[in-house]
């Protein structure tokens, strides 16, 4: 008669096997959870590293652009019409007065290139009389000082009174902040 066989089988084999399996299972579970957690952290870390490098690259680019941007913003904050007037005055002071004369100045509502963008803009129309090259120099100087000016219209025709001079009518779209 085997009175002990069942209890030995249960408590000496089955129960230890279950306990062992539970320990191993718990170990596998813990490792799995840690691995999953690590994968998440690793992904975050890689994302962080990529982001950090991107941020550095961006920072480098932005740092290069920043002085220009600050300069632009300072310039764009100024009122367009007065700035154009002021600049034109300064430009014509350094040019022969007989070769350039401002004949009209008219601020206009938003239009032209400005209608294509939601960004604030305005238009100005300027009439001038002068020689071709002097006028070109004046426009070059004005457009260099004020890069926000985009040429909208330009009309050139001969002046009826003075054959050596040309009439210029120019319309600019000026981007504003």
């Amino acid at each position, binding site marked *: 008669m*085997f*009175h*002990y*066989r*069942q*209890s*030995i089988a249960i408590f*000496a084999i089955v129960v*230890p*096997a279950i*306990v*062992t399996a539970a320990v*191993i299972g718990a*170990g*596998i579970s*813990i*490792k799995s959870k*840690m*691995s999953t957690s*690590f994968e998440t*952290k690793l992904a*975050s*870390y890689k*994302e*962080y590293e990529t*982001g950090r490098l991107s*941020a550095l690259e*961006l*920072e480098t*680019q*932005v740092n290069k*652009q*920043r002085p220009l*941007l600050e300069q*632009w*913003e300072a310039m764009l904050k100024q009122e367009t019409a007065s700035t154009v007037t002021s600049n034109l005055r300064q430009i014509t002071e350094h040019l022969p007065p007989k070769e350039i004369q401002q004949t009209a100045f008219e601020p206009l509502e938003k239009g*032209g*290139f400005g209608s*294509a*963008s*939601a*960004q*604030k803009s305005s238009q100005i129309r300027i009439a001038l009389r002068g020689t*071709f090259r002097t*006028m*070109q120099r004046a*426009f070059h100087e004005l*457009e260099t000082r004020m*890069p926000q000016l*985009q*040429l*909208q*219209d*330009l*009309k*050139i*025709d001969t002046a009826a009174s003075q*054959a050596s001079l040309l009439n210029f009518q*120019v319309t600019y779209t000026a*981007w504003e902040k």
Partner: protein
Amino acid sequence: MATLSHPASLNPLKQFAQAHNVLRRTSRASNPAWYQEANELAFQVHIRVDGPQIVTFYFDQKKNLWSTGPTLTEETLNDPSKIAPFANEVLRYSRSQGATALGVILHIADEFAIAELKPEFDNPAALNDLREKATLDPTSILEDSSVQADQSAWRVLPYPAAGSASIATTIALSRHYAPFFEALRLLAEQANYPIITSALSAPLVAIMGVSHAIAPGSAKPFVAILQYPWLTALAFFNEHSDLKLVRTLQHRGLRRPTNFRNALATTNASLEFVDPDLFLIPLGSNVDSALDADLRVTFANSRVEVLQFALPDGVPAWCPEPAIAAIPAATDVPHISSHTFSTLREEQWATQNFLPTPREIEEIYPTRAEMKLFRYARLSWVAMAACALLSLCYVAYSAFRLVSRPEWSFDTSAANAAKGRITKFGQEKVKANSWSNLLEDRSKAWASMEALAIMFPKDGGMLVKTYSHSAKPENASGKSTLGFSKEWKISGLARDESLDYLNQLNTREGIAAHFSEVARITGNSAYNPSGTTRNLVINVRTQENTGYKPAPIEEGHMLDDTTYPFTFDLTITQRFEGTDPLAINSAKIP
């Protein structure tokens, strides 16, 4: 060791605890002797009790050496409380001989009773069944229904001879030596040293040993007369040396049974033995030595012979049973062979244990198979613990490897900070790029004037009268970048020599070359005609000047319209698609 209970009275957990206790505190798992028979052990003590005398022998089976055993008195044998000196001595001696277990074999020669089986069991095929019932439930097979099972022990003895009156009989011995064995077993448990006991019927062993004492050659039936101090046992064998009947005659205080000759003669007659050989075997140190002479007179036609056993040194001739019982079945070479002798030896009919450990005591302890199972299970614990430990070590190692990496201790808030920096710089970059886009040199007056200036070279025979230039964005909503178009309209006068130039300009290649030149000179990328996002078209129309007055050229003034035979109208249209780098961002800059 704590008191053990029968496992049937315990729940499984307590059964396991008890088995574990036995495994841990006893040598039952490691010493197989606990589960062997007494005669299988290497070191044995044989005790022979024949009534007036008790003799003991040590038997070292490995050395096949017999020696005189310790003194054992009848008082000790019958009073277990006085067993300690004897038991301690045999234990001490056994251990001194290097034995790991001790077999105690009691040869009972002071009693030998026969009880007949019920007639319904007269079936040779039922012998094994009878053997089991004789041990477990003797009253069910015995003809005498008045027997008390707790007072005696019965064992079946087969009669292999053909024509026997019955297939077997039973030998009965009283249980009055059982307390002696019980005391020995308790001592063994206390000492954690296997002492395995066995009680044999000395006459049965002697009957089995007859084959070693009789000389071969006789073809007659014979009677073995076992002459013990207190009884005489008669074993009747047929001419094939097969046992046909066993009888026992008590001496009742005399040196021989009173009706011996008569009993022998009548039994011979009943068995139809005619002048059988009579082999007298004296099995006591002081038995009636005149019996053989009397038999020769009474049974004149029979061969009467006193048998002597060839015994090893240390065993007296009058007590051969220990030596006979100790002969292993595999090495037993009898002088005469018969089915009876081989059956008695091989099937151990003659060496049945009359006083085995009671089943209820035996069942307290796990069986050998259960102890093996438990032992292997404990070994498997080591394996399982190792697996679990390895698993935990692996997890710990893996965890350590993970934790020691910098990614593990990474703070996710740093990632958020980095994202914030990217967002901040990204917004700043977007802002800068947006302004850069709006401030691109897509349409400049000075560049347009330069384009006009180099379009009509000096002294080229052309006079520009009007010039107009306009730029306008495309009408499209919902797009992030919008294209635009620029148009130049130029009218003027031309002489003959300039027509080829105008015709050349009025081609895709011609106007593209002009724009490329403007782009090169001014550095203004808006005049670069290459790329699939830009389209450049020119249309030049020339016609006769109605006011032309032919005159020698040298006489004509450059500004005199009448000196030009042709007029021209030139229209240039340049389109920029929404995908062009100079396309206008439609969104408001943040």
